[in-house]
């Protein structure tokens, strides 16, 4: 037997945090970083109260307000619901000693944007949060996954949780992306090819030339969408780009701790010959921008395509879901995607609300105007992203084009803060979920990259930057 078995990236991180494997059941896993937000934490703190427990490691936790906070200034922008949630989070954090970035703090933002941005999310660490898009943090080479509120309570109390060890899947992305294709398009292509539950039960490691060529922010978009592929976590081995990204972050380790960390990260890759439970390759050579037509992220096609006929789909479940989707989306099979008119556009979210996303959208909007009748919004992923964009003059570009320049938060991605679309509205959106009612009861969502959302806002129908005169 070899003394050093080859291991995958996932196995190295998981095993370093595994406390114990329970007989026939889950592992006890120690958690390095626990991120909290106002929407999924109240009942967890209540449970600690009921049990008379304290927060064991407040220094491993950070709370932020993002899900229901307003993106407009002034007291009137707060819904009663949001005010209550914000009050509860502030009170809980104060009483339990959990560090909080409240609304109004310069470092506030969407939880999955600020973790990496502040240098809290580190390669090789375990990160959990009561939010399924915690998979985002895996882009830095972390084991990061969403948990329910019960487990938020467990992590507060013991800085550990019970978790089934997932199987491992490698997704190799080969080729060279076509013009205008981004991490978002790769994710939509992958999910539409294999289905929105293909990754269920797996930790997905993305690799290959396409991933190596991606910026860290693009990698975050890809890992973010892992949950829409059914996988609780997606991860990417840290490389020179990752180290460079983390090195620029305010709260990264410093001095000797930094040197030790970088030395450790250099070992954080899947060993040559390590076995995955499943390996797939997706050739994305020449990939062009994608867009969704239905009500789950697997309902995606190239922008050059047409709405498919549900009856042409391979399984009864897929046909049922597609039929229901087309009724909700008010679309007919065979409609060319570019003929679908939009009346709203949204740029933001933990998927595509970072500075590179805003730059890409602004590039399209420079010297152009949003089409008449289209309501367009941009909510930067964090207050720091907003400040940086303003420093670069992007806010002026968005405003001049007719976009509303908002504060940071989840905003129209989850429609829990008062930013909401009216029934029947059809949006081009840089978010992650096109579920029924996600952006408002009866509202219809088409997922796209930020540049394509900007182009659609200008064209007044689903479009890419290349379609604009």
């Amino acid at each position, binding site marked *: 037997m070899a003394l050093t078995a080859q291991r995958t990236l996932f196995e190295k991180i998981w095993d370093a945090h595994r406390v114990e494997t329970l007989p026939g059941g889950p592992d006890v896993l120690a958690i390095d970083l626990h991120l909290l937000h106002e929407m999924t934490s109240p009942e967890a703190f209540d449970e600690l109260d009921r049990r008379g427990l304290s927060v064991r490691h407040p220094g491993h936790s950070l709370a932020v307000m993002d899900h229901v906070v307003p993106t407009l200034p002034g007291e009137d922008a707060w819904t009663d619901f949001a005010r209550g949630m914000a009050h509860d989070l502030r009170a809980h954090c104060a009483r339990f000693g959990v560090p909080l970035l409240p609304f109004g703090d310069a470092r506030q933002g969407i939880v999955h944007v600020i973790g990496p941005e502040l240098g809290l999310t580190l390669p090789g660490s375990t990160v959990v949060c009561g939010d399924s898009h915690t998979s985002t943090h895996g882009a830095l080479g972390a084991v990061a996954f969403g948990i329910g509120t019960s487990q938020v309570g467990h992590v507060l109390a013991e800085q550990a949780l019970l978790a089934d060890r997932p199987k491992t899947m490698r997704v190799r992305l080969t080729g060279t992306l076509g013009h205008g294709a981004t991490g978002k398009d790769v994710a939509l292509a992958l999910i539409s090819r294999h289905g929105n539950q293909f990754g269920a039960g797996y930790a997905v490691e993305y690799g290959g030339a396409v991933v190596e060529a991606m910026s860290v922010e693009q990698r975050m978009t890809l890992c973010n969408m892992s949950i829409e592929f*059914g996988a609780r976590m997606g991860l990417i081995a840290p490389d020179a780009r990752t180290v460079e990204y983390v090195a620029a972050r305010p709260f990264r380790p410093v001095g000797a701790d930094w040197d030790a960390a970088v030395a450790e990260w250099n070992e954080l890759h899947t060993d040559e010959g390590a076995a995955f439970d499943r390996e797939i390759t997706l050739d994305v050579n020449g990939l062009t921008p994608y867009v969704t037509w239905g009500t789950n992220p697997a309902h995606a096609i190239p922008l050059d395509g047409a709405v498919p006929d549900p009856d042409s789909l391979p399984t009864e479940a897929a046909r049922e879901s597609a039929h229901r989707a087309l009724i909700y989306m008010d679309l007919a099979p065979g409609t060319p995607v570019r003929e679908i008119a939009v009346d709203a556009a949204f740029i933001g979210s933990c998927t595509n609300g970072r500075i590179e996303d805003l730059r890409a959208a602004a590039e399209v909007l420079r010297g152009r105007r949003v089409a008449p009748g289209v309501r367009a919004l941009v909510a930067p992923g964090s207050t720091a992203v907003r400040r940086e964009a303003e420093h670069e003059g992007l806010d002026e570009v968005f405003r001049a084009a007719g976009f509303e320049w908002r504060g940071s938060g989840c905003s129209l991605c989850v429609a829990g803060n008062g930013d909401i679309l009216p029934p029947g509205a059809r949006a081009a959106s840089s978010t992650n979920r096109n579920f029924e009612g996600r952006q408002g009861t009866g509202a219809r969502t088409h997922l796209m990259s930020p540049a394509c959302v900007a182009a659609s806002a200008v064209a007044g129908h689903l479009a890419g930057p290349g379609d604009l005169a």
Partner: protein
Amino acid sequence: MRPVVIAPTPVVEGVAVPFDYANVDTDAIFPVSADEIARREGFGRALFARWREADPGFVLERPRYAGASILVAGPDFGVGSSRESAVWALTGAGFRAVIAPSFGDIFRSNCARNRLLAATLDSAACAELREELSARPGARVSIAVSEGRLTGPSGRVFEVGVGEFARACLVDGIDEYDLLARRRARIEEVLARREHLLRPTTRVARPEPSGEHG
């Protein structure tokens, strides 16, 4: 309002609803727009709120299914969000089990922690069970959790997948707080090895109040 707490039990029994939908996402089960009313008046109020509102003939609105406690659904039930409110909506409305060919990962994990049985049944058998239930609206079903055995309305027995951890949650009523607390020393050992990387978190605690929206 506090989520409904279900006592451990080896058997789940009750009226079963044939729920002929595939790929039901958590936002359909529990719309965010219903969160406010749910927290005030109980999570059950929010269950499929939009679908109930949009369709008066929606299956859960039919009198024959009043008091139902078992949902028999299509594949990929509960995909999407980690919001446990999707589970609380089901338990709040009186559901004790969901049977489906497959589930969203996080949703299923949340089910076990609320003692809502989320058991798998192969796709063809699940479709047959739904047909049996559609033919006899209001019929009852019984599930022996440890044995993973579901007895349908016609007496036909189906093997369902429960999972060892879910079984322990539902039948033994294990307490994860207690289980983790008993391993505290070993958890601390693992964390101590990583402490040098994690000190930054507490430094963030100092407020930096210059990010006013506006």
